[in-house]
């Protein structure tokens, strides 16, 4: 079976790393795109810490060795070269467009934990109606605070995406490399302005969260 790490454009050289299972990395050129793969013996790649980290390590190396990289999602394997070529040919237009979208950018992840509300619940007098009203006010206030945190970061980004979840804000930002330092300063500024919140910013990552074109398949 064949494991795909990523699709790249203008790959300079393969990273000096072994692939999953220790088998060598290979570079295949299909439709003008450089694919980085390795052969795996099992037909079902196992999710282990080693495998996940190795995949991530290879993708990260590709980031610095190519003009643009689309990390591949882990867990999919191809039977042979023909199957992979066919899949890439089918998706070549989308892949090229996505490579252009993420070119020159890195991804930052943001997780903000905290209530984001002060004491809007204090107006609750115990009745069902006032409880609902308080919850609604609280949820609106959370939305307002998370939007206020998100907005300036999104403005520095070429693209951004917010994920739903229990936390105040979970988002990813596609940031031009030249803006990365400014982005970091902005995050530290938000952190300082909101000591009541826990702000965790991770990155720079390869553009995992932006590898799929939101317009995919639409022409």
């Amino acid at each position, binding site marked *: *079976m064949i494991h*795909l790490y*990523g*699709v790249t454009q203008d790959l300079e050289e393969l990273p000096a790393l072994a692939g999953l299972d220790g088998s060598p990395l290979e570079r295949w050129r299909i439709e003008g795109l450089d694919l980085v793969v390795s052969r795996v013996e*099992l*037909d*079902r*790649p*196992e*999710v*282990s*810490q080693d495998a*996940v*980290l190795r*995949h*991530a390590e290879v*993708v990260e190396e590709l980031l610095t060795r190519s003009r643009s990289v*689309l*990390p*591949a*999602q*882990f*867990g*999919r*394997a*191809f039977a042979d070269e023909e*199957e*992979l070529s066919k*899949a*890439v040919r*089918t*998706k070549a237009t989308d*892949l090229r467009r*996505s490579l252009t979208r993420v070119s020159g950018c890195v991804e930052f*992840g943001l*997780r903000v934990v905290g209530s984001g509300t002060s004491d809007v619940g204090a107006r609750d007098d115990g009745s069902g109606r006032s409880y609902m009203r308080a919850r609604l006010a609280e949820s609106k206030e959370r939305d307002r605070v998370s939007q206020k945190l998100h907005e300036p970061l999104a403005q520095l980004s070429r693209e951004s995406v917010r994920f739903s979840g229990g936390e105040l804000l979970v988002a990813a930002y596609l940031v031009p490399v030249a803006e990365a330092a400014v982005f970091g300063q902005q995050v530290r500024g938000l952190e300082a302005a909101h000591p009541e919140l826990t702000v*965790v910013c*991770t990155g720079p*990552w390869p553009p*995992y*969260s932006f*590898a*799929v074109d939101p317009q995919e398949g639409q022409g």
Partner: protein
Amino acid sequence: VNARDQQALKQQVTLLELVDRVLNKGVVVSGDIMLSVANVDLVYVGLRVLLSSVATLEERREELIAEGAGRR
């Protein structure tokens, strides 16, 4: 929270973010989803996060199977 705990926490969060990205994000060129939960040995990574990632993939696999069946 002391500085060392904070550092450990940061590393842990970073690892979780990484696993989330590798398993849930990224481009899908095609191919079948073939993920085995066997021999999961993620020492530092919260199993709950991993399992929810796997659950997402399982759902998608079922969707793909359903789609494939519809096409035939």
